[in-house]
């Protein structure tokens, strides 16, 4: 019972410490004697008097200390005392204060008994051990030091990009493990079919093959065609099925991972943020990044915050202005926006047409000089990358004319760029699919994905070392020249780099079916990208003017990643379906695990048929349309329950807020009443409290 009270008391302490100075009568109330003795005031008043004796200072300790004091007082009365279980380091006081608090606790522990104290020290040891292990483990995480430096010089926003990059690396490593388990492992252990020739580098193979994905690579385990049906040939355990299971597992796991990351961040920012907007308060109270050490970074941070605040105020007055617009202005603005949107649309269409033409051109199979044929082979990736490099910047310029607020401008640019990136990839995939009627269509498709990856990486590499670095050198050596003034200082444009990452991850996902080693290649590429971008950010960039908050931007990153995943899954599903059609017509030679008239559909069919009849009927029911109805119903029920729970919680939040207001006004009223009573009576209480007050130093100024 005692302990229960204690806990409640401490909760109250932290929940409602209120104090007001707004009205003239409240000014009066907080000068009264009783005010200083309110627990909430003592909880927030800094405790700085260690020299005075404990009996006096104890009454003026910080929050949790009050709980201590009570139990201490009870100690003299009787043995039925429970010590506060809060760890000492959680107390808001100086070390000496904690030491004294601990001394008092020691007494209590000895009264509790040997067993209890042993248990407690053991639990402390355990916790310390765990903490130590956690510390070592987090030290083992790759790139911790680099992230620290980047965070110190560029703040949380840029770090979020690198953390996102690291997350992608982890995910690809996981994919690699799955590939090894499901696809590579069985193939190495059970071999391939007898017809396949041994793998060796030679003949007409050249170094160029590593860029084009032809010749040697075409025969290597990199591509789909390598994985022919081996000796492992049970009805429900064979290489084609394992292959399929591996790919499905990869997609499923990625979906879970990405959705989880998105929702975790989403809960933090938007769901609460919209309803209980705390934007400005965040900017002020959590604005400073205490990890910054570099004076230059500090000046930058100052300008970040200043710009951010000005931006906010500007947006506020913008929305005011927006509300006051006349009808004529509205119409003109609407016209302007539609014209600009048309322009954006036509740019997009032009870009897609360009991609289409380049795909057609690279399909042209006449003999050329090797450099020309290399360029022709790489024409579609080059076009896509160029389009993706140039158009987002044009979109950025266009959106500045549209008279949107600044945030809206950035968002509009981002949405258009995402659309461009993913759609151009989709169009490219579609056309390369349509044109592919070669010996092994899957290999060809995988080769395209491989080329896209390699080229994207090469483009990153070149833009870092051949574009950004010389630009930076130019800035340094000839700061007053026309060119360097024209180019301006380089900024690390996080959204564009993130778009890049999302794009390449989408390519990995699309390609993983046709090119199973793509996750491995992807891991290597992403690691390379990490070092390249680290170089870019640390050596070539000044921090950008607009600040990106770590949390909200990472939600956006993961959401884009989710879009990429959905798009990859759709493409793959469409491709497989398409393949079924073409296989029926026997238009192309089969290759890979699904040779000899086997498709993924009849392989699973054989497996299902070999199962006992009960399992068969269950599986067939699960796959049929009849199952969709109960599934949808169940989903609806679950969703409804979550939504209603969320509403209930919101109501509870509202009620708690009201209670907070009420209790604080109650307190003000009571204190006022008490003071007037005290003044009227002038009783001995006053003398005593004055005596206590003498021991206490005046509150610090």
């Amino acid at each position, binding site marked *: 019972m005692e302990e229960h009270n204690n806990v409640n008391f401490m909760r109250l302490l*932290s929940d*409602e410490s*209120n*104090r*007001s*100075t*707004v009205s003239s009568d*409240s000014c009066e109330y907080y000068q009264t004697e009783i005010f200083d003795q309110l627990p*909430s*005031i003592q909880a*927030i*008043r*800094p405790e*700085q*008097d260690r*020299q005075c004796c404990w009996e006096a200072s104890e009454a003026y300790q910080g929050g949790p200390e009050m709980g201590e004091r009570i139990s201490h007082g009870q100690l003299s009365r009787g043995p039925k005392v429970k010590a506060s279980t809060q760890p*000492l*380091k*959680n107390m*808001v006081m*100086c*070390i*000496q204060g*904690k*030491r004294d608090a601990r001394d008092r606790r020691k007494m209590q522990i000895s009264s509790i008994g040997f067993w209890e104290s042993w248990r407690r020290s053991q639990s*402390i040891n355990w916790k*310390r051990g765990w903490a130590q292990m956690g510390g070592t483990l987090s030290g083992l995480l790759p790139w911790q030091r680099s992230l*620290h430096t980047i965070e110190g010089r560029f703040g*949380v926003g840029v770090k979020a990009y690198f953390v996102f990059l690291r997350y992608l690396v982890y995910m690809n490593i996981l994919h690699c493990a799955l590939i090894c388990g499901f696809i590579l492992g069985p193939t190495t252990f059970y071999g391939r079919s007898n017809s396949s020739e041994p793998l060796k580098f030679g003949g007409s193979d050249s170094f160029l093959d590593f860029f084009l994905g032809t010749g040697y690579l075409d025969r290597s385990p990199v591509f789909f065609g390598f994985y022919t049906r081996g000796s492992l040939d049970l009805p429900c355990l064979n290489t084609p099925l394992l292959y399929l299971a591996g790919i499905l597992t990869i997609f499923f796991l990625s979906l879970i991972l990405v959705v989880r990351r998105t929702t975790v961040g989403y809960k*933090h920012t938007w769901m609460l943020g919209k309803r*209980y907007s*705390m*934007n*400005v*308060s*965040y900017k*002020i*109270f*959590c604005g*400073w*990044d*205490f*990890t*910054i*050490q570099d*004076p230059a970074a*500090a*000046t930058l941070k*100052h300008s970040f915050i*200043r710009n951010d*605040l*000005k931006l906010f*105020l500007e947006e506020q007055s913008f929305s005011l202005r927006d509300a006051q617009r006349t009808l004529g202005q509205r119409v003109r603005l609407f016209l302007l926006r539609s014209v600009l949107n048309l322009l954006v649309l036509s740019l997009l269409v032009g870009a897609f047409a360009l991609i289409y033409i380049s795909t057609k051109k690279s399909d042209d199979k006449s003999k050329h000089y090797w450099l020309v044929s290399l360029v022709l082979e790489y024409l579609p990736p080059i076009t896509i990358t160029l389009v993706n490099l140039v158009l987002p910047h044009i979109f950025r310029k266009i959106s500045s004319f549209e008279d949107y607020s600044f945030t809206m401008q950035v968002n509009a640019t981002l949405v258009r760029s995402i659309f461009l990136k993913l759609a151009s990839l989709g169009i490219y995939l579609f056309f390369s699919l349509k044109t592919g009627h070669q010996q092994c269509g899957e290999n060809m498709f995988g080769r395209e994905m491989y080329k896209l990856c390699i080229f994207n990486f090469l483009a990153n590499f070149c833009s870092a070392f051949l574009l950004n670095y010389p630009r930076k050198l130019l800035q340094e050596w000839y700061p007053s020249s026309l060119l360097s003034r024209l180019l301006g200082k380089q900024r690390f444009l996080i959204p564009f780099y993130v778009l890049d990452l999302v794009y390449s991850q989408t390519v990995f996902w699309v390609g993983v079916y046709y090119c199973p080693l793509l996750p491995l290649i992807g891991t290597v590429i992403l690691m390379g990208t990490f070092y390249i971008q680290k170089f870019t950010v640390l050596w070539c960039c000044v921090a950008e003017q607009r600040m990106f908050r770590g*949390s909200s931007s990472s939600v956006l990153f993961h959401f884009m990643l989710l879009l990429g995943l959905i798009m990859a899954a759709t493409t793959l599903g469409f491709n497989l379906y398409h393949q079924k059609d073409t296989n029926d017509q026997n238009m192309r030679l089969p290759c890979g695990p699904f040779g000899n008239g086997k498709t993924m559909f009849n392989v699973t069919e054989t497996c299902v048929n070999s199962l006992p009849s009960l399992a068969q009927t269950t599986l067939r029911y699960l796959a049929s349309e009849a199952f969709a109805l109960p599934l949808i119903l169940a989903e609806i029920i679950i969703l409804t329950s979550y939504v209603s729970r969320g509403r209930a919680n919101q109501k509870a939040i509202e009620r708690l807020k009201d209670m*907070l*207001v009420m209790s*604080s006004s109650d307190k*003000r009223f009571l204190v006022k009443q008490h003071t007037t009573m005290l003044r009227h009576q002038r009783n001995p209480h006053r003398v005593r409290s004055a005596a206590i007050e003498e021991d206490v130093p005046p509150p*610090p*100024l």
Partner: protein
Amino acid sequence: MGTTASQLGKDLLSEYQELTFLTKQEILLAHKRFTELLTKDEKELQNTRVPTERILTLPELKSNPFRKRICHVFSTSEQKDGSLTFEDFLDLLSAFSDSATLEIKSHYAFRIFDFDDDGTLDRGDLEKLVNCLTGETDETRLTRDEMRQLIDNILEESDIDKDGTVNLSEFQHVISRSPDFVSSFKIVL
């Protein structure tokens, strides 16, 4: 208590580990860095106070606009001169460490932002806070109108009981919703 003797005793070290959020390595590193701030004579003494000016030469604090407030809040000096003993220094590092709880961090943040030490953030405190954030010089400051608009906004959002100031619980209410706070309210040696 041989607090600033050249070597930290084993008992003291484990005591500090119990009382702060710091690990053994961090405490040893803190001790090393703190001893470097001492002059030769001071190293002989125990419980030396290092004046604020010398503390502020640490690179971790040098470019922080709240450095004086930080020293002031963590100082146990009677003269309120912001000088720190080694234990005060450990308190500081503990509150700013990775493993300190949100409760602790927000509490100290509140005290750092409470410029007049009256236990609540009023308009004056908020104005000083904003000036610290944007930079103190005349051209970096916000204009008077902007400042008024901004503070009105802050109070409208955070001052739940509408008494014209932000108190500790209202402050913690805001902070607890910000996932960025714990990661940015951090000083690691």
